[in-house]
C-alpha cells in the first residue's frame, strides 16, 4: 500500500493540472463550439509571466494575481472577441486553423518580448515544497502536492457553484446547439460566450502556474504535453462531461506516477511507453469512442448558409489577363532560377534551395487539406520518417542518399497508409487531434531512439553524388537544380491526380462526404490514398531537407513544425499547387530577411508570429490571404483594362461570403 501510494502521490499534482485544463477545454467547447488548442500556450503565457514577475522581485501573491486573475481572462476575452467569435459555428477547419495559429504564436510572442534565456522555476505559491505537511497511510505529502490539490479543489467548488446556479447553464446549452439560432431568437449570447472564454482561460492560466514548480526550468514542451494530457482527459468525458474530464485528468496523472514508479528506469517501458501514455490514450479514445467520432455530426441546424470558398482566381480570370499573368509568372520563375544559378550569393542560394525543399513538403498539405479537406497535424512527422530512413540508410548501410530518399518516401507512405486506417471514420476535429497525438507519439517515443532519429548530437547526412558530380563540392547550386527537378516532378504528379477522376472524387468528398458516398465513392479508399500519397511527398521532402542541411537531429521534425507548416500553407493558399510553392519560398525568405534584425528579433520566432497572424484571416479568406489579394488585384486589373473576364460569378460569391461574415453568429 505504501509503495503504491508513494508512486501514485507524486502523480497527483500533474493530474490536477491536466484536470483543470481538461475542464476548461470541455467548458469552452460546450459553450462556444471552439476546441481551443491554444490553451496549452495560454497556460504557458501565464506561467511565463508569473516566472518573469517573480524574477523581478514582485511578491508571489501579486505575480499570481497578475498572471492568473488578470492576464489569463484578458487573453481569453481578446481571443473570443477578436477571433473566434468572428468564425461561423460550422466552419470547423477555420476554428481549428485559428486555434493552431494562436497555439504556435503565443509562446513566440512572449519569448520575443522577454527573451528566451533559461528561466528557473520559482518555488510553489504558498507552501514549502521541501516540507512534509501530512502523511496519508504513512506516505508523506509535501507542500507542492498539497498545494495543487487545495487549489484544484477550490477551483472545482467555484466552477460547480457558478454552473449549478443561475440560468447560465441553460443559456450555455442553447449556445452550444446553435449560436445563430439563439441570435435569431433575440437572446444575447455575447456575455455567455465572453464569460465562458474568460473562465476557461483563467483555468488554463491557473494550471500553467501550478505546473511551474514541477519542473526545474520553464519549457514550452511541458505545456504541449499538458495540453495533450488534458485532451485525453477531456476525451474520456467525450468532450462533454466536466466531471469525467476532471476525474480522467487526475487518473491520468496517477497512472503516469505509478508507471514511472513500477517500471525500472532502464526498462524499455520506462523510456518508451511512459512518455507515450497520454498520446496513446488520446489516440485510442478517438478511434474507439463513437461519441467522439460523432462530434462532427452535431451540426448547426442553420448550417448550409455558409457559402463555399471561391474558386481560385486563376480559373476564372479573363483569357487575356490569364495569358499575360501566366507568361509573367513563368518569366519570373525562370528569372529566379537563373539568378540563383548566377549572381545570388551563397547564403541566399541556400535559403532558396531550402524553400524549394519546403515546397515539396508543403505540397503534401495541399493534398491533405486542400484536396481532401482534412487538417493533418503530423506532416512534419512524415517528413521526419523520410529523413531519418534516408539518413540511417546512408550512414549505417552506405545506401546512396537519393535511393535512401526514395526508400524513405516509400516508408513514410506505408506509415501514412497504416495511420489512415484507424482514422478512416474520423474527420475534422477528431482527425486533427489524432494526427497531433501521432506526431507527439513519434516525437516522444520513437524519434528519440538512436536507431530512429539518430543520436541527440545529430546524424551527418551526405549530399548526393550523381555520376561524377558530387553536389557537396559544387556548392549548393547543384543541389538547387536537383531539388527543383524533384519539385517539378512532384507538382506534375499532384496536378495529374488533381485532374484525374480521383481528383474529382476528392472534390466531391471534400464538399459533401454524405453526397459523395451516396453515389458510390469509397471514402475509405480515398482517405488511405490521400494520406499515403501526402506522407510520401512529405517523406521525400524531409529526406532532401536532411541532405541539404547535411545533418539532422531527433528534434528537427517535431510536432511544432507540423503546426507551423499548416499555418504557413494556409496563409498563402492551401487549395492550389502554386500556394504550396509560394508558402515554401516565402517561409524561408521571410525568415532570412528577418534574420538581419538585431538580437532576438532575428531568431526566427518573429516569422512564425507573422505567419500565424496571417493565418488568422483563414475564416475570412479560406482560400488564403495571398490568393485573396490576387483575386482583388486581378479584378481591379480587369476593371481598369475593361476586360470582361469570367469572374462575374466570383464577384457574386465574394460578396455573398463577406455578407455572411458580417452578420455571422454574433459578430
Amino acid at each position, binding site marked *: 500500500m505504501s509503495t503504491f501510494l508513494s508512486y501514485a502521490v507524486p502523480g497527483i499534482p500533474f493530474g490536477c493540472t491536466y484536470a483543470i485544463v481538461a475542464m476548461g477545454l470541455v467548458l469552452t467547447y460546450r459553450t462556444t463550439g471552439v476546441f481551443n488548442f491554444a490553451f496549452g500556450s495560454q497556460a504557458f503565457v501565464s506561467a511565463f509571466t508569473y516566472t518573469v514577475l517573480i524574477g523581478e522581485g514582485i511578491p508571489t501573491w501579486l505575480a499570481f494575481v497578475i498572471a492568473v486573475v488578470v492576464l489569463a481572462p484578458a487573453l481569453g476575452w481578446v481571443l473570443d472577441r477578436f477571433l473566434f467569435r468572428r468564425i461561423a459555428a460550422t466552419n470547423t477547419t477555420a476554428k481549428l486553423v485559428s486555434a493552431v495559429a494562436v497555439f504556435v504564436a503565443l509562446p513566440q510572442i512572449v519569448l520575443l518580448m522577454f527573451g528566451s534565456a533559461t528561466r528557473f522555476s520559482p518555488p510553489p505559491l504558498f507552501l514549502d515544497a521541501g516540507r512534509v505537511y501530512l502523511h496519508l497511510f504513512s506516505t508523506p505529502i509535501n507542500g507542492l502536492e498539497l498545494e495543487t490539490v487545495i487549489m484544484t479543489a477550490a477551483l472545482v467548488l467555484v466552477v460547480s457553484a457558478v454552473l449549478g446556479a443561475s440560468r447560465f447553464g441553460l443559456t450555455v446549452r442553447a449556445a452550444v446547439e446553435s449560436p445563430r439560432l439563439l441570435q435569431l431568437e433575440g437572446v444575447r449570447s455575447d456575455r455567455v460566450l465572453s464569460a465562458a472564454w474568460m473562465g476557461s482561460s483563467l483555468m488554463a492560466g491557473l494550471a500553467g502556474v501550478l505546473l511551474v514548480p514541477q519542473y526545474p526550468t520553464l519549457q514550452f514542451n511541458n505545456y504541449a504535453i499538458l495540453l495533450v494530457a488534458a485532451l485525453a482527459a477531456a476525451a474520456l468525458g467525450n468532450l462533454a462531461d466536466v466531471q469525467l474530464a476532471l476525474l480522467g485528468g487526475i487518473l491520468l496523472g496517477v497512472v503516469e506516477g505509478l508507471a514511472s514508479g513500477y517500471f525500472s528506469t532502464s526498462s524499455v517501458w520506462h523510456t518508451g511507453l511512459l512518455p507515450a501514455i497520454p498520446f496513446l490514450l488520446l489516440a485510442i479514445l478517438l478511434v474507439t469512442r463513437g461519441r467522439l467520432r460523432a462530434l462532427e455530426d452535431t451540426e448547426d441546424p442553420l448550417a448550409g448558409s455558409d457559402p463555399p470558398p471561391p474558386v481560385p482566381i486563376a480559373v476564372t480570370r479573363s483569357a487575356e489577363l490569364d495569358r499575360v499573368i501566366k507568361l509573367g509568372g513563368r518569366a519570373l520563375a525562370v528569372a529566379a532560377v537563373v539568378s540563383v544559378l548566377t549572381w545570388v550569393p551563397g547564403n541566399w542560394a541556400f535559403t532558396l534551395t531550402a524553400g524549394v525543399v519546403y515546397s515539396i513538403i508543403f505540397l503534401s498539405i495541399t493534398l491533405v487539406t486542400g484536396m481532401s479537406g482534412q487538417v493533418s497535424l503530423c506532416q512534419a512527422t512524415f517528413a521526419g520518417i523520410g529523413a531519418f530512413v534516408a539518413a540511417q540508410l546512408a550512414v549505417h548501410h552506405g545506401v546512396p542518399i537519393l535511393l535512401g530518399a526514395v526508400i524513405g518516401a516509400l516508408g513514410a507512405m506505408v506509415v501514412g497508409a497504416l495511420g489512415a486506417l484507424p482514422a478512416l471514420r474520423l474527420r475534422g476535429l477528431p482527425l486533427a487531434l489524432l494526427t497531433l497525438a501521432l506526431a507527439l507519439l513519434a516525437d516522444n517515443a520513437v524519434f528519440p531512439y538512436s536507431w530512429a532519429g539518430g543520436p541527440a548530437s545529430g546524424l551527418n547526412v551526405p549530399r548526393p553524388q550523381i555520376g561524377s558530380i558530387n553536389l557537396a563540392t559544387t556548392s549548393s547550386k547543384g543541389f538547387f537544380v536537383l531539388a527543383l527537378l524533384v519539385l517539378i516532378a512532384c507538382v506534375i504528379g499532384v496536378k495529374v491526380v488533381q485532374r*484525374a477522376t480521383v*481528383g*474529382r472524387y476528392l472534390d*466531391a468528398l471534400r*464538399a*459533401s462526404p454524405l453526397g459523395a458516398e*451516396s453515389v458510390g*465513392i469509397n471514402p475509405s479508399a480515398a482517405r488511405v490514398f490521400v494520406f499515403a500519397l501526402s506522407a510520401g511527398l512529405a517523406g521525400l521532402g524531409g529526406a532532401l531537407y536532411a541532405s541539404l542541411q547535411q545533418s539532422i537531429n531527433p528534434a528537427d521534425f517535431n510536432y511544432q513544425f507540423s503546426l507551423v507548416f499548416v499555418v504557413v500553407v494556409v496563409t498563402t493558399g492551401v487549395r492550389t499547387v502554386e500556394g504550396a510553392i509560394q508558402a515554401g519560398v516565402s517561409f524561408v525568405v521571410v525568415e532570412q530577411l528577418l534574420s538581419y534584425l538585431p538580437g532576438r528579433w532575428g531568431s526566427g520566432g518573429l516569422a512564425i508570429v507573422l505567419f500565424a497572424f496571417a493565418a488568422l484571416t483563414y475564416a475570412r479568406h479560406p482560400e488564403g490571404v495571398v490568393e485573396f489579394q490576387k483575386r482583388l488585384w486581378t479584378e481591379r486589373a480587369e476593371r481598369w483594362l475593361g476586360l470582361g473576364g469570367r469572374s462575374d460569378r466570383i464577384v457574386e460569391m465574394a460578396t455573398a461570403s463577406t455578407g455572411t461574415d458580417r452578420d455571422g453568429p454574433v459578430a
Partner: protein
Amino acid sequence: MDPLPERDRGLSVVSVSVRFGGIAALEGVDLVVDPGEIVGLVGPNGAGKTTLINCVGGQLVQSSGSVWLGGESLDGLPPFRRARRGVARTFQRIAVFPELTVREHLFIAARARRRGGARWSELVDRGRPDPDESAEIATTLELVGLADRADAAVSTLPLGACRLVELGRALIGRPTVVLADEPSSGLDARERATLATVLRTLPAQGIGVLLVEHDLPMVSLVCDRVVVLHVGRVIAQGAFQAVMADPAVRRAYLGQVA
C-alpha cells in the same frame, strides 16, 4: 415476416426498427417497392420518413430488421456499396458539391456508380467522361431540365435547381431504386412540373421510386401506392384515395395541424 417471397422483387424493408437512445423513431416497418413502381411515403414531420430512407441508403444502421434489394441483403454494407448495387437517393437537407458544376456532378455519379474508383488508371486519366458517359450525362441534363445551366457551379443555383441536380445525380447510372426525400420542397411551379414528369418516366425504365413528399397533389398524381407513417409505424397503405379516406390517417394529419 419471411424475406424469401420478396426475392425477385425490388426493394424490401422487413420489420425495421430504429431507436435513438430511448426514443423509437421506427418500429417494425415493412415496406416493398417493386421495380417500376412509385410508392409515396407520407406522414407528419418526425414520423420517421427520413430515418427509413437513411436505413435503406446505409447512412444509418437499423436497431433490428433487414433491408433487401433484388433478393440480396443490404445489411452491413456501407452507403457506397449500396449505391453501387443500385440504391440512389436525394437528401432532405441537400448534399450537393457547391464548387462543382452540374455536369461534373453527373459525371462523378455516373462514373462512381458504375465502377467506383477501382481502377488504377483513374489516378492518371483526364477526368473526362467517355462517350457512353457523355451521352448519359446529356440525356440526364435534358431529363431534369438543366441543360442550359450544365456548366454553372452549383453554388450559384437556387435551391430548386439544386434539388434537381441531386435528382439527376441519383438517376444517372440506372439505379434499381430511387429514394427521394422531399424533392419538391423549395421548387417553383415549373420545377415541380419537371419533377413530376421526370418521376413518371422512371417506371418505364424499371426503376422503383420511394417518394417522400408533403405535396399531396403531387403524390396523388405520380404515385401508384401510398404508405402512411406515423410515429414510426405504418398506419395505412394502398391507393391514394383510399388511404386518405382512412380515419386513422385523418387523425394523424389533423392531430398534427391542430
